[in-house]
C-alpha cells in the first residue's frame, strides 16, 4: 500500500509540472509592451537618467528582460562588466548606456575592471574610468581632482585598487557591517560606503538576520539605499512594523537584483539557466504565494483568494454531496428495475437533465425568483443548479456499475441462500458498486468549478467564479491565472486522493500499479 501511494504521488509530479506550464503560458497571452530601441534609450538617458532607470526597472519587474524557458547566458556582475567595458572600448551606440550601467554596478564591479584596467587601450581606459566617476562620488571621493579629470582618472582608479583592494573582500566587509551594528559612527558608515555596492551582499545578509535591532535595520537600510540608489523610506521613529516593511522591501529587491552585484559560481550558473527565466520567476512566485496583485483594487491575489474561495468551495462541496445522495439511490433503483417502466422514466429524465444547459436552468430559476431576492434564496438555487448539473452523470454511472455487480455470482449466491433483497442490494452489491462512483468525484471537480462560474455570476454569489468574471471585465491577468492554477491543482489533489482511496479499497488496482489516469 505504501509503495502504491508513493508511486501514485510520484506520478502526479509531471502533471503538476504540466499544469504550471499551462498556467504560465496563459500569462504569456497578455500582449507585452514593446522594447524601446537603443537610440531612444540613449536619448532618454541623456535627458533624464531617472526615467531611464524607471523604464529598466519596470521591464525587470515583469521579467521582460528574461527569456521564456531557458536562459543560456544568465546575467551576473561579471557578464555585465564585460559587456559594458566592450561597448565602452568600441565606443559604439550603446556606450552611453554601458557607462550608466557600469556606474550602477559600482564597487561590486571593481574586482572585474580595476585589475585589468591597464590592459585596455589608452582611450578605452579613459572612457571606462570616466564612466566610473559617479561611483567615486558615491564613495565620497567626488572632490578628488584626479577622479574628476578624464586624463588622470585611470591612474586614480588603479591607485585606488592598489591601496584598497584588501577591503574588497567578503570577510573585510562582514567585519565592517558588524562594527556598524555594534554602534554607528560616521567612520564605520564610511567604511561601508567606501566599498560601494560591494557591501550589498553582506548588508542583505545582515538585514535577513532577525536578531538585528530596529536601529540596526535603519542603518543598514540607509547604507544600502545610498550605494544602490534603491530608495527605502526609513521613518525617524523605528517601529517593529517599519522594520518588517523595510526588511521585506529589501529582500524583494535583492531577489531580482542580486545578479547585478554578485558573480555566479558554476553551480549557481546552472541553476540560473533555469531559474533566471520568466517561467522560473513565475514559478518561484507561485511557490511563495506571491502571484501579484489584482488589477482592480490592488489587493494581493492570495488575500482575495482566501476571501472568495470558501464560497465556491461550499457551493461545490455541498452540491457534490447532495448529488451523490440523490444519484446513488437513483442508480440503484434503476439498475434493480432494469428495463422496467421506472428505469425508462428515470433514464429519460436523467437524459434531459444531462442535456440541460446549466446557464439556461440557472437563468430560468433566477427569472422565476424575480430580481429582488435574499442571499439565502439565491444560494439555495445555486446549489440546486449545480446539483442537477452533477446528478445525471453520477446516476448514469452508478446504474452501470450496479448492473455490473448485480450480475456477479456472489450476488446470485446471496439471493439463493435467501438473503433479503434490500440487504443484497445495499450490503452485497452497493458496497462494491459505489467505489467507482466515489472515485468519479475527482473527475467531477473541474466540471463543477466550471459550472460554479456561471452559477455565481447568475445568482451574484461572491465566489471565485464571480470574481473571475469581474477580472475578465478589467483584464486582470493576475487573478485569472491564479484561478486557473488553483482550480487545476485542487483537481489534481482530488484525483490523487481518490486514486489512493481507490487503491486502499480495491487491492486489484494496487496490483496493476499506477496506470496513467488519463489513459485507462
Amino acid at each position, binding site marked *: 500500500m505504501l509503495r502504491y501511494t508513493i508511486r501514485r504521488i510520484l506520478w502526479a509530479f509531471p*502533471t503538476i509540472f*504540466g499544469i504550471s*506550464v499551462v498556467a504560465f503560458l496563459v500569462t504569456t497571452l497578455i500582449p507585452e509592451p514593446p522594447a524601446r530601441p537603443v537610440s531612444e534609450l540613449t536619448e532618454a538617458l541623456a535627458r533624464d537618467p531617472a526615467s531611464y532607470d524607471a523604464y529598466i526597472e519596470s521591464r525587470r519587474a515583469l521579467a521582460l528582460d528574461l527569456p521564456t524557458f531557458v536562459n543560456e547566458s544568465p546575467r551576473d556582475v561579471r557578464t555585465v562588466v564585460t559587456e559594458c567595458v566592450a561597448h565602452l572600448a568600441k565606443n559604439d551606440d550603446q556606450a552611453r548606456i554601458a557607462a550608466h550601467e557600469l556606474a550602477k554596478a559600482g564597487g561590486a564591479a571593481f574586482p572585474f575592471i580595476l585589475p585589468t584596467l591597464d590592459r585596455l587601450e589608452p582611450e578605452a581606459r579613459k572612457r571606462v574610468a570616466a564612466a566610473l566617476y559617479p561611483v567615486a562620488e558615491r564613495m565620497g571621493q567626488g572632490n578628488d581632482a584626479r577622479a574628476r579629470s578624464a586624463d588622470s582618472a585611470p591612474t586614480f582608479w588603479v591607485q585606488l585598487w592598489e591601496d584598497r583592494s584588501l577591503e574588497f573582500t567578503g570577510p573585510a566587509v562582514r567585519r565592517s557591517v558588524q562594527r556598524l551594528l555594534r554602534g554607528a559612527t560616521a567612520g564605520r558608515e564610511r567604511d561601508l560606503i567606501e566599498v560601494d555596492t560591494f557591501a550589498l551582499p553582506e548588508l542583505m545578509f545582515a538585514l535577513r538576520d532577525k536578531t538585528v535591532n530596529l536601529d540596526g535595520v535603519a542603518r543598514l537600510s540607509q547604507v544600502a539605499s545610498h550605494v544602490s540608489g534603491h530608495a527605502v523610506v526609513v521613518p525617524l521613529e523605528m517601529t517593529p512594523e517599519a522594520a518588517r516593511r523595510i526588511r521585506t522591501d529589501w529582500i524583494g529587491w535583492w531577489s531580482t537584483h542580486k545578479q547585478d552585484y554578485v558573480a555566479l559560481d558554476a553551480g549557481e550558473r546552472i541553476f540560473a539557466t533555469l531559474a533566471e527565466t520568466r517561467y522560473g520567476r513565475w514559478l518561484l512566485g507561485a511557490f511563495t504565494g506571491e502571484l501579484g496583485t489584482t488589477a482592480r483594487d490592488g489587493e494581493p491575489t492570495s488575500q482575495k483568494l482566501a476571501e472568495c474561495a470558501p464560497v465556491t468551495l461550499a457551493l461545490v462541496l455541498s452540491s457534490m454531496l447532495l448529488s451523490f445522495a440523490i444519484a446513488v439511490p437513483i442508480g440503484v433503483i434503476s439498475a434493480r428495475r432494469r428495463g422496467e417502466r421506472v428505469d425508462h422514466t428515470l433514464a429519460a429524465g436523467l437524459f434531459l437533465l444531462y442535456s*440541460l*444547459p446549466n446557464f*439556461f436552468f440557472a437563468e430560468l430559476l433566477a427569472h422565476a425568483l424575480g430580481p429582488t431576492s435574499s442571499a439565502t434564496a439565491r444560494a439555495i438555487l445555486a446549489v440546486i443548479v449545480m446539483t442537477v448539473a452533477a446528478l445525471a452523470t453520477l446516476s448514469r454511472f452508478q446504474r452501470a456499475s450496479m448492473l455490473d455487480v448485480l450480475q456477479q455470482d456472489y450476488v446470485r449466491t446471496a439471493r439463493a441462500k435467501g438473503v433479503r433483497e434490500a440487504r443484497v442490494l445495499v450490503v452485497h452489491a452497493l458496497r462494491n458498486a459505489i467505489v467507482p462512483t466515489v472515485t468519479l468525484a475527482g473527475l467531477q471537480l473541474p466540471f463543477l468549478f466550471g459550472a460554479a462560474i456561471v452559477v455565481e*455570476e*447568475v445568482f451574484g454569489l461572491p465566489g471565485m467564479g464571480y470574481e473571475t468574471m469581474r477580472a475578465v471585465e478589467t483584464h486582470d*491577468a493576475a487573478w485569472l491565472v491564479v484561478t486557473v492554477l488553483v482550480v487545476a491543482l485542487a483537481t489534481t489533489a482530488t484525483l490523487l486522493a481518490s486514486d489512493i482511496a481507490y487503491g486502499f479499497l480495491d487491492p486489484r488496482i494496487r496490483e496493476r500499479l499506477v496506470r496513467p489516469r488519463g489513459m485507462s
Partner: protein
Amino acid sequence: MRMDRPGSLRYAIKIVRARRWADACALLLAMLALVAAFAEELASSRPILCKWHGSVHLLANVTHPHDLDGVTPDRFDKEKSAGDFAVWPLVTCGSRASCGPAVTPPLASRAHPLGTDGNGRDVFARLVYGTRSAFAVAILAVAAFVGLGAALGAIAGFFGGSVDFFVARAVETLSAFPVPLLALVVQALVPHAGVWSLVTVIAALRWTEVARLVRAEVLATASLDYVVAARALGASPLRVLYKHVLPMTLSPIVVSAVLGLGQIVLLESALDFLRVGLPASIPTWGEMLSESREHFGAWWLLLLPGSLVFGSVIATNALGEALRDALDPRAA
C-alpha cells in the same frame, strides 16, 4: 468487405434509425443546419431577388449592393418604378440593427413574428444568425479537436514508449483544467479574441477525450492477427497504421464527433452567456440569454434561445448515444 456487419457505420445507422427518437433528432439537427446555412434567406434587411430602378439584383442579402442601401420594404413599395418587384426574406430585418420598438412580444406585430429584444432588434433574425454562429463554431472546433485527438491518440497507441508517455501526461494535465474556465481566461486575455481563438482554445483543450478513445482502440487492434500478418508481409509502420489500424478507430471517432457537437454548442453558448465568447457584433444564443436578464418579464427573450440550445444539445446527445450503443456492443 461487407458493410452491413455489426460495428460498421451502415449497420449502426440502421440500428439508430430503428430507435424511436433518433429520426426526430437527426431531423432537428438537419433543420438547424439548413437554417444556419440559409440565414440570409430567412432574415435580412435586403430582398432575395429584386428589380430596383431598372437594375436586377439577385441575392442582394448576400452581395449587399450599394444601390439598395437604406431601402426598406415600405420605401420600396412607395418609391418603386413600374416593373420593379422584390422577393423579400421571411423577416425583413437584419440581426444587428434595431428595426422596431423595443421588447415587443411575439405575434404582436407582423413584421416581428418572434418579437424584438431590448434594443429593438428582431428576435427571429438574431436566433437565425445565432444558429449560424453556434453551428460554425461547433463544426470547426469539432473538426479541429477530433483531428488533433485522433492523430495524437493513434501515434501514442501505435508507437508507444516515450511518445505515449508524453501524450498521456499531456492528457492528464489538460484534464485537470475546467474547459470553460480556461477558455474564458484565454478569450479574455488574448488580443483580438474571436471565432479563431475560440476554436483554437477548444481544440487545444478537448482533444484529450478523442485521443484516449483512439489510443485504446489502436492498442486493441494493433495486436490482432490481421495486423500482425500485415506487418509480417513487410508493410511499413505508417501503412499498417493508416490502412489497417485507423479504420477500426472510426466508430469511436464518429461517436465523439457527434457528442462533441452538442458539447461545443453548450460551451460556446455558456461563454457567450458570460460575454467572453464571440465578439458582441456576432449574434449568439448565449448572448441573447444573458440580455434577457435585463428584461425580467420578457419570457421570449429567455425561453426561445434557451430552448434552442437545450434542443440542439438533446438532439446531438441522443443521436450520439444511439450511435455509440449501435457501434459498440460492449456499451449496450
